[in-house]
């Protein structure tokens, strides 16, 4: 077993373009989609939990479809499919819409579980001090659910970081697209892909630190 020759010069030269792709593509795409996706997920979770069978059914079907089909196809349908129905959306908005809808489907179940994990007594304590359902949700339940949902949502988030590489199929340039370009020029696809993977990993490590901080902040009112 021998180590392959590594073209270190190429590795160094390609570092900045890859990082730039990450900073101008991967990261803003991830942040925007995650924020919007969370909002959608909250709505879906409330539809699932609320009394209405119809709303709950709609949310279930949506979640099932999103989780059951490949993300690539979801991107294609929005970007290449909708124009034939007369609706043409630019690459970046298309990407953000598709990723948000995807995150929404996955995060909805997490948020739903987190809301259900708050003891029923918290709702009731809210009601007995005169709160409406809405007030109890906003002021009592969601703040407590937030704590529980940080770890599973951070999984969704880390998956999203990597999934944004699919945006290159709908004309959005991010890190993986840069990697493909460099690989195509240099024909050194292994080296470049591994380099990109390492940068993804560093992003994820940084994000894990943020997650830890957030957890610790939210932990201040919990024993231990």
């Amino acid at each position, binding site marked *: 077993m021998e180590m392959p020759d590594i073209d270190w010069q190429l590795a160094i030269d390609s570092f900045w373009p890859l990082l730039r792709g990450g900073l101008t593509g991967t990261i803003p795409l991830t942040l925007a989609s995650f924020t919007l996706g969370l909002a959608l997920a909250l709505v879906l979770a409330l539809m699932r939990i609320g009394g209405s069978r119809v709303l709950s059914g709609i949310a279930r079907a949506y979640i099932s479809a999103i989780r059951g089909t490949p993300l690539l196809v979801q991107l294609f349908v929005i970007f290449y499919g909708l124009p034939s129905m007369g609706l043409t959306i630019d690459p970046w908005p298309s990407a953000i819409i598709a990723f948000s809808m995807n995150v929404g489907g996955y995060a909805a179940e997490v948020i739903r579980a987190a809301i259900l994990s708050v003891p029923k007594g918290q709702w009731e*304590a809210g*009601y*007995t001090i005169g709160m409406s359902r809405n007030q109890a949700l906003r*002021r009592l339940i969601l703040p407590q659910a937030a704590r529980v949902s940080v770890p599973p949502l951070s999984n969704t988030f880390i998956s999203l970081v990597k999934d944004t590489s699919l945006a290159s199929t709908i004309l959005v340039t991010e890190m993986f697209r840069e990697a493909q370009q460099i690989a195509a020029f240099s024909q050194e696809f292994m080296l470049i892909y591994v380099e990109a993977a390492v940068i993804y990993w560093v992003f994820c490590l940084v994000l894990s630190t943020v997650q830890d901080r957030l957890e610790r902040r939210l932990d201040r009112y919990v024993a231990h």
Partner: protein
Amino acid sequence: MSPTDPTRTDPAQNDPLLRVSGLNKSFGDNEVLRSIDLNVQAGQVLALVGPSGSGKTTVLRCLNGLERPDAGTVDFSAGPAVTFSEKTTRRQKESLRTRSAMVFQGYNLFPHKTVLQNVTEGPIQVQKRPKAEAIAEAERLLERVGLAEKRDDYPHQLSGGQQQRVGIVRALAQQPSLLLFDEPTSALDPELVGDVLTVIKELAEEGWTMVLVTHELAFAREVADTVVFMDGGVVVEQGPAQEVLRAPKQERTRAFVHRLLNPF
């Protein structure tokens, strides 16, 4: 909480503050309450005792609008009576809520809020009372139960007995006409029970009207004016505390009281 408190009624008056009649409630096939009648005089303490599953908690929850009875009337002197049926609206059910306040077995404090925030959440956020006033009132009540210096702690930093005292203060801060207690000490370490019972006893002496579910028969005998013994969803026996707990007329009551006082 002073005797001139506007939310409280003079015990001497002796009106029924609360009149419950014909309360029925089923969960599916399980008939949990059958034709419950209760009267609570203003300024008096009613103790609800009975075996596990007899429906005591369900009665409290119906009074507080957390559960919708299938039939029956709940009549607070402080507002319009609510008669329950299929058609009773959520709004009607909820109208009961403002007249009473509940103290839970498991405290149910808000873990993400400090002691003071727990107490002022209702007055400020729901009743929209002036913030400064609500805080002053909360501090006075906390002082009263010996928890003034805990105002900025989170619930998990308190012992069970302290948490339950906060729970009581949170209920008092609602300025209700009726206090509901659901086994307020049964989740507590035996040594911490005393602190909470002492507070409840003082409230009773000050003339608060209460309905109290408890397994502490000695305490019920001491503090309650009336004792209601329930079993299987019906009221088996009710009357003055001394009578029902010392010399029960019904066989079922007698067996229950005996079992609790002589466990082995």
